[in-house]
């Protein structure tokens, strides 16, 4: 990706990183109740991995990027549901390894950090706009 030149590059990438985080929370919550017939097929919560990207030309400017989205290494719960259509031959299904409370906390944190970055950015933008009108 191109180099970070202004504060708007910092903001755009940081906001899209938080957006990826919100999207993973949404898909985790959407899959929270699903079951699968095998341990391997069961859904496991997704998490983005954040990494810092530094501006090459200007020291001090840096932003957040999502380097990858990983599936958490968690054991799906084995439930005895003999009447479930997806049950295996012993009558067990494997529930998605998603902790709803944890996802809610993740969602609140992501949205607060999105707001913080956006607020910072709009303050700097307003300052720039006022500076442009200097002397008039």
């Amino acid at each position: 990706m191109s180099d970070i030149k202004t504060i708007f590059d910092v903001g755009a990438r940081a906001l899209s990183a938080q957006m990826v985080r919100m999207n993973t929370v949404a898909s985790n919550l959407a899959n929270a109740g699903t079951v699968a017939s095998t341990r391997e097929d069961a859904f496991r919560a997704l998490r983005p991995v954040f990494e810092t990207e530094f501006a090459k030309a200007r020291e001090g400017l840096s932003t957040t990027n999502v380097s990858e989205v990983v599936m958490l290494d968690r054991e799906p719960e084995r439930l005895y549901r003999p009447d479930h259509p997806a049950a295996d031959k012993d009558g067990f299904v494997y529930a998605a390894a998603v902790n709803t409370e944890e996802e809610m906390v993740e969602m609140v944190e992501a949205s607060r950090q999105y707001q913080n970055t956006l607020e910072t950015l709009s303050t700097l933008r307003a300052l720039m706009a006022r500076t442009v009108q200097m002397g008039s």
Partner: protein
Amino acid sequence: MTVGFRDSIGLHANALILRERRGEILASNIANAATPNFKARDFDFDAELSRAMGPGGPDSTAPGHLGTARADGQLGYRVPVTTALDGNTVELATEQMAFAENTLRYQTSLQLLNRRISGLMTAIKGE
């Protein structure tokens, strides 16, 4: 008595450059609030301003030249109040407070600079 244009607006012009720079650094810190191992940066505004206002500096070619505020000043690392397990040293309260203060002081410098310029304009027009 002659006062150069540069002398009359110098302080706040340099202050404005440094305030803008500091705002961008603090915004970068806030943008990285959730990144593991990110180390928050900042610089000493007073030290940078007196360096910019002092005589000499790397860009002066004659003894009478004033320095200018430079965007590549000495950047340091913030010492966190409480350390986080993931190695991130951004503390949102600290950063937001510093950002709010920086914004206010930027506006102050801008306002003073505006007044100075409109004063000069009045003097030029003689109205």
